[in-house]
């Protein structure tokens, strides 16, 4: 599903942020990505959701070589990947409902075909009452839940999450972890970047540790 071989990444002429990163995710895998701030976790995730391309090495996603992937193919690869951004990236002018439905909408689905799924998911993450609210009036935790709901609404094959429980209380963090485990059980491959040691402990899944741009399996 996902394979990196000696991948390196640098921004412009700056120092190398990722050095010889190699690992593979198979369908159904569930990994945590840990490491101190500035270790390159977010950059690695950006590579994996195709916001960046590696400056060296090979990156294959769903059997496609990202280095030679044409611009026209990118949307179809991205639709198979769900992303929870650290800074949420909700659109402030759209309701919570419209934000969550966005991946389905851009895929060309009609509103009537996804209305029930979106409302069910909003109910599950405790945002049913806030479906018409705009993100600026949501709390940090509510925004986090809306961002997670948007990432999973299209049932992606690969879910990448950057600090998905950073703004929620321990009870909700536990619920979200159960959601991730349930999605993984249903076949979604997971890679979750987090500082939350409690979350990692509870899940008891393998850890990829990133330190100064170098990746190791723990």
């Amino acid at each position, binding site marked *: 599903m996902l394979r990196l071989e000696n991948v390196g990444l640098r921004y412009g002429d700056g120092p190398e942020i990722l050095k010889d990163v190699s690992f593979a995710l198979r369908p159904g895998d569930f990994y945590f990505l840990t490491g101190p701030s500035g270790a390159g976790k977010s950059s690695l995730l950006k590579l994996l959701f*195709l916001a960046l391309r590696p400056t060296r090495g090979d990156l294959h996603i769903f059997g496609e070589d990202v280095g030679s992937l044409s*611009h026209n193919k990118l*949307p*179809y690869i991205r639709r198979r990947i769900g992303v929870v951004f650290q800074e949420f990236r909700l*659109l402030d002018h759209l309701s919570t409902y*419209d934000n969550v439905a*966005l991946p389905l909408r851009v*895929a060309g689905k009609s509103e009537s075909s996804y209305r029930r799924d979106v409302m069910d998911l909003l109910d599950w993450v405790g945002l049913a009452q806030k479906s018409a609210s705009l993100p600026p009036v949501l709390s940090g935790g509510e925004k986090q839940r809306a961002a997670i709901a948007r990432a999973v609404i299209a049932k992606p094959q690969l879910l990448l999450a950057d600090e998905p429980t950073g703004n929620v209380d321990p009870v909700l963090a536990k619920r979200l972890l159960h959601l991730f485990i349930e999605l993984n059980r249903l076949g979604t491959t997971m890679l979750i970047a987090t500082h939350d040691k409690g979350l990692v402990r509870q899940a008891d899944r393998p850890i990829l540790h990133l330190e100064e741009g170098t990746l190791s399996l723990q």
Partner: protein
Amino acid sequence: MKPGAIIPANAASLRSLTVTMAVMSYLACLAIGALILVDRAVTSWTSGLAREMTVQVRVVRGADIGQEVEKARNILSSFPGITEADVLDEQEGSKLLEPWLGTRSLEGLPVPRLIRVVTDPSNPPDVVGLEEALATVKGVRLDTHRKWEAELTRMARALSVLSYAILFLISISAIAIVIFATRAVLQANRHIVDLLHLVGARDSYIARQIDGRFLRTGMLSGFIGVGLGIFTFLFLSLFGGGSGGGFADASRGLLFSAPHIAIWSYGFLFAVPLAATLICLITARVTLIRRLGVVT
């Protein structure tokens, strides 16, 4: 539940573009109006000139100018394709020279006599044959007005080229303005565009969210421009002054001519909003697709 607009309506105002495009459309209307008027005026002048010729009989020593004029008139009257041959009397001839010689008496001066010839437009005379037939008349010269017709045609062609050049420059400027405006909208909504890309939106989908606004802007500005253009022609036709030609008559000719002619004027004028809409839509779409391909 109707989904909200993905690109917010107030994210980047196209008001400046609407004003600029309306001005461009207005200028295009004026240029098209000028083009139509020049074309019509030349058609009318040249058809008038083509229907008339002038025969001039100069005073030649040893010849009686009266007899020569009569001889010329007889030849002209019997020549095929000529419907009328009027000899201008001496007073009329003197009147034609007034701009140069004033109102004083021309008695004693060798003033040439003129014969106004009207031809049959459906069966015009053979000019070479007519010149040969008139060769027997002493001091005769046939003026077919071809020189004037050529001058008018040249002038009209120059004015038409100028109008087309103005229309071309207006179109180029409009395209450049729309490109800048499209880039500004993209820049103002960069965070939305990036997110749309990351959740799997195709470039054409993102472009559709934006270019509809350019379509409406083009249409609105085009109709404002053509409305102002028609108002200008109407204003000139009513208050342009003077009945002896000029802007007033030209504008009246443009707006209030016979229906079968006026329909063309209005057709060309209302092509302006269509062109403005197409320029806005196509330029915005091409710019968006090109820029979106770069900002992967």
